[in-house]
């Protein structure tokens, strides 16, 4: 059993509200109302806490994207800010450690000196020595570059809101509202830890997928309402793409639900962590499903290579074009929030939720098990979940840096012709695993091992497989537009 946190958030919140209500309403003649009032305020408080946690959690992906993209594109750019801790900024090196009381700063000074001598700016060329590093906008002790995001937020908040004159005013205003509110609603059902969640109905998976799927409607509204041909095209593309990828997504998620035997997200996570249930991470049981989930999620959040709806080269910003100020800011935030939601869901469904890898085995170790046990009690499990989610987001960034944008009809073709059959196959596999192989207890090691080995072997085989004939003939891919008349003046026959 994965160790529980020593701090039970829901319990604490419930206790606090109960006490509050007891002492306030409970003392009045409406004391009978205190029961539902305390429950209600507990839920309300939890919602607020989850909101704050989400907003803090999304800063991670936003910061990672800025830094990681630079490294992957082979320019180091803004990634070096930490160095200015010892080299100083703008030719100024403040010896801040000297201000620390009781001489704690002295060893810091030694470290600083060591860093300056070995990794500093000293050079025989005086002009090079006097350099001041590009100043970074962050707290000096963490996340340099982060303040830029707050500056962005401020900028969004104060910019002018300019609806186009001929836009449909109601739809124009409603669209971003739909998008951002459904995005935030999704987070209501995502548990950050064993006790850190806002809502946990029995069918939370169904609810969440349903809400996740409302956003295409908002996108469509936004694209149409702006009275702009570009946004219309962007909105259409987006609606088509998101709808097309909802299906494989849902089928894959159904596969997960079948495998875990429940439609509740927390129970799916528990299925992977609990020693008496499954206790194997689902990624090893359904690697195909994991890959499908990732791909469909990248398409759902409209990141490259599936960001055709916002493709800058053709549509400027796509369906976001006409929105300014905070509306755009919220849409921008919703993109990252949806990406974060996708990463969190991936971690919950496939990567074992908030369990540290091999947590149970570590606790069960003979000598050091006690230390690990204490560690895992003290460090809130949400930390592990967040780290996994951020790691998955790093994968999203990696994909973005490497791959081109796929054309809309190719995206749709890919979704309908390839992902849908694969997801149905995956569903079949999950059904067979659950009904045919699963026997109620933890998975025997051979099952995930075999599946993983098969998946890796398939991957390697696919990678190494080169169609020599096609290569020799340099045959074109299947989805070539068959145009016979690419010549000036000819009209294509639209009835074909």
């Amino acid at each position, binding site marked *: 059993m994965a160790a529980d946190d020593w701090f039970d958030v829901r319990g604490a919140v419930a206790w606090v509200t109960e006490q509050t209500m007891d002492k306030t309403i409970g003392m009045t003649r409406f004391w009978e109302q205190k029961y539902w009032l305390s429950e209600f305020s507990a839920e309300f408080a939890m919602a607020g806490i989850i909101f704050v946690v989400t907003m803090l959690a999304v800063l991670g992906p936003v910061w990672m994207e800025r830094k*990681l993209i630079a*490294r*992957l*594109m*082979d*320019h*180091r*750019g*803004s*990634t*070096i800010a930490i*160095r200015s801790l010892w080299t100083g900024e*703008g*030719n100024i090196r403040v010896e801040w450690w000297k201000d620390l009381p009781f001489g704690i700063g002295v060893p810091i000074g030694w470290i600083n000196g060591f860093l300056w001598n*070995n*990794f*500093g*700016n*000293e*050079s*025989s*060329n*005086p*002009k*090079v020595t*006097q*350099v*001041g*590093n*590009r100043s970074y906008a962050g707290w000096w002790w963490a996340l340099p570059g982060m303040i830029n995001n707050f500056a962005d937020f401020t900028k969004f908040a104060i910019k002018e809101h300019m609806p186009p004159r001929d836009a449909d005013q109601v739809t124009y205003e409603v669209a971003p509202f739909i998008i951002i509110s459904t995005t935030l609603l999704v987070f209501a059902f995502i548990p950050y830890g064993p006790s850190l969640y806002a809502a946990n109905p029995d069918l939370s998976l169904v609810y969440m997928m349903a809400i996740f799927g409302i956003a295409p409607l908002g996108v469509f509204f936004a694209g149409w309402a702006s009275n702009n041909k570009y946004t219309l095209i962007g909105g259409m593309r987006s609606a088509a793409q998101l709808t097309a990828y909802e299906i494989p997504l849902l089928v894959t998620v159904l596969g997960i639900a079948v495998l875990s035997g429940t439609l509740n997200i927390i129970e799916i996570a528990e299925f992977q962590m609990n020693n008496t249930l499954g206790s194997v991470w689902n990624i090893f049981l359904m690697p195909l499903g994991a890959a499908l989930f990732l791909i469909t999620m990248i398409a759902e959040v409209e990141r490259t290579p599936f960001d055709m709806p916002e493709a800058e080269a053709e549509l400027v910003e796509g369906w976001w074009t006409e929105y300014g100020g905070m509306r755009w800011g919220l849409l921008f935030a919703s993109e990252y929030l949806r990406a974060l939601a996708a990463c969190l869901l991936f971690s919950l469904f496939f990567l074992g939720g908030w369990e540290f890898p091999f947590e149970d085995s570590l606790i069960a170790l003979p000598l050091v098990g006690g230390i690990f046990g204490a560690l895992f009690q003290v460090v809130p499990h949400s930390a592990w979940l967040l780290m996994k989610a951020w790691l998955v987001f790093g994968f999203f960034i*990696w*994909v973005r*840096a*490497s*791959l081109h944008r796929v054309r809309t009809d190719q995206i749709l073709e890919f979704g309908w012709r390839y992902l849908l059959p694969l997801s149905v196959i995956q569903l079949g596999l999950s059904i067979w695993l659950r009904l045919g192989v699963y026997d109620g207890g933890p998975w025997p090691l051979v099952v995930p091992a075999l599946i993983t080995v098969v998946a890796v072997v398939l991957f390697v085989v*696919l*990678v*190494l*497989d*080169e*169609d020599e004939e*096609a*290569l020799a003939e*340099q*045959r074109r*891919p299947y989805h070539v537009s068959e145009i016979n008349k690419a010549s000036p003046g000819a009209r294509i026959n639209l009835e074909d």
Partner: protein
Amino acid sequence: MAYHPRATPNFRNLVVRPMWITLRAGLRTIPVIGPRFFSSGYHGKQAQMLDDETINRIGDNDSGDIIYAADRETSHFVKSISRPVTIMYPYERLEDLEPWLFVPNNYNGRIGVVWETCTACKACVRACPNDCLHMESEVRVNVLDMPDAPEDDAGLSSVEFAEGGYLARKNDDFEEIENTFSLETAHESAPQQYDFAEIIDLSGTTASVRWTDSGKTESVDLEGMIPAEQDIVSGRIDLGRCMFCGLCMESCPFNSFFMTNEYDGMSGLTRDDLWMDAARTRVLPVVHKEAVDRELAKRADKERAKRERAAKKASKEA
């Protein structure tokens, strides 16, 4: 010329190749293990970039620590862990870090004029395609030719009567102006004491000239005329129009017009701020010492040759 040997759209090319390349590029930036394990073989390889001439020019103040690679991105300007490859202008300047890029006279930077050797010949004005150089000059009598110059020094200017040149004649009001003009009460600028004319044709002791005031062409006797020259009053260049083509620099016959290494100092808040007059285009002669010395040597040689000829003529006549 064939396709790339592995250019087919297959599974491997979808997933593996592009993502491996970016991953490797990212891992290459990790300080210690990156260059060791994920290097590409040509990344950051040291290359000889400084040539002897540049080392002579910049002296030994050059950065001994800099490890140059063929591209700026992998040059190690400071031996340390990963440093931004951005040149931290204004603290660092590219000409300090890569001095071969800014060879004086080779770089089309801001205009600089050594006014000491400028003779106002207006060749630069004529060469400019954009009409950005404005030179104001006027015809003047050289100070050594002035009528009231001391006896010993008079007539030693190098200005002579020449076709296309100028001559001057004392005004009728010459004495009157000298005696009566007072700047405090006149409330106007001092009047010219000479009449100037452009020499069209020169033959013996007469010349046909065109007077600048009246425009009349006349044939005059050179006796009593003073040779005059065009001298510069002010010169300006409109950097707002300048396209930094360098034609003016090449057209200057007196090695006075340069394009410096400067790329700063050419900004202003209005278009008029971009008019660079003598003060803003001044280049210290020592900066372009070689060129200035060459020019001086040329002129000194010419002067020496002339004096020799004059001395020979004098001795022959004597």
